[in-house]
């Protein structure tokens, strides 16, 4: 019983620390907020169920991001081929005075991210979350050199798409 409580406390600590980042990653991946929350739940259910498989040879965050990446990518979106839906802002902005202005930028940013290939969406969301290149490379299992090239290309692509939306 005590062991279970300790496990629950450890999980809660890990969850509170990483859930926001994982949710933003999921929202960058899918254009549907409810689906993003489903992916978040699925990710952390796997974290809870497979804690014993974590061997400690990578950072716990890398292990969680990898589960999140595999969860997002292995989920078959039924609406994969439909046109991207009009995005609702994914979150409440803290500053009410300029919320409308900010929301528009954020909506455009998510729209732009959703135009990228699926793995690129996850990579760029990890870059934007300031996760180290070493950790991103470990998460998706590619070399750091290869990752740098990819990130350079994705940044250019995203900037181009985003400012096209901004000009509309």
């Amino acid at each position, binding site marked *: 019983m005590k062991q279970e409580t300790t496990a*629950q406390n450890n*999980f*809660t600590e890990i*969850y*509170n620390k990483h*859930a*926001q980042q994982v*949710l*933003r990653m999921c929202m960058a991946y899918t254009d549907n907020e409810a689906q993003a*929350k489903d992916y*978040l*739940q699925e990710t*952390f*259910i*796997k974290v*809870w*169920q*497979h804690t014993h*498989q*974590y061997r400690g040879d990578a950072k716990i965050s890398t*292990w969680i991001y*990898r*589960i999140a*990446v*595999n*969860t997002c*990518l*292995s*989920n*078959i979106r039924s609406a994969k081929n439909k046109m991207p839906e009009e995005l609702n802002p*994914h*979150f*409440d*902005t*803290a*500053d009410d005075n300029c919320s409308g202005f*900010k929301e528009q*930028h*954020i909506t455009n*940013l998510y729209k732009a991210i959703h135009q990228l*290939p*699926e*793995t*690129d969406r996850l990579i760029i969301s990890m870059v*934007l979350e300031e996760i180290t290149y070493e950790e991103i490379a470990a998460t*998706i*299992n*590619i070399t750091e050199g290869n990752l740098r090239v990819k990130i350079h290309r994705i*940044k250019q692509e*995203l*900037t181009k798409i*985003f*400012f096209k939306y*901004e000009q509309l």
Partner: protein
Amino acid sequence: MNNFDDIEAIWKAPQSLSIPAAAAIIQKAAEEKKQLSRRIFLQSTCMFLAIAAIIYVVYTVRFQYLVTYIGLAIMSACVIVFAYLRFRQSVFLNRADFSQSPSVLLRKFEAFHEKQKWINTTGVAWYTFFLNLAFALYFYETVAVAPVTGTWKIVIIIMYIAWMLVATLWLGKRSIKKEHEKTKAIIEKIKQLKDELA
């Protein structure tokens, strides 16, 4: 506003995302585990009931022909082997380690899919063959040479054939198709991921 730094600034804008409580996740995980246990329990119960029914028949009815016993033994073997294979499949799907690299996950799913294909084609064909053989041997004594009228014999055989046709050609095919589509979709997705990461 025209470079990536501006994008970073937008992303970093204060956000308050509502996330489910950790306790809710733990509860959902427990529910999933319960569901899986229930499914395994149900499958095991069905298997044991089938075996128990066969054992009951063997001990309560004194058959005269050896072929009847052989038929019942083959039936039991079919039930045990098929239940065991199904159990292994569900264990694989529930224990798949999603923290592995996508390429390792792909290899494991591909190997699983190959096994699944074998089970659902060759395996099911052998299963159907042996089950029908078992019933044919069983029916020799209980229907063919049993003191029942010709009409009843025909009714029993027609009912058996109808049930077999429904089970193999309709129910079985539908579930196999669904299973294959699911696994293939996962493999396609991981393949796509592998290509994108190449």
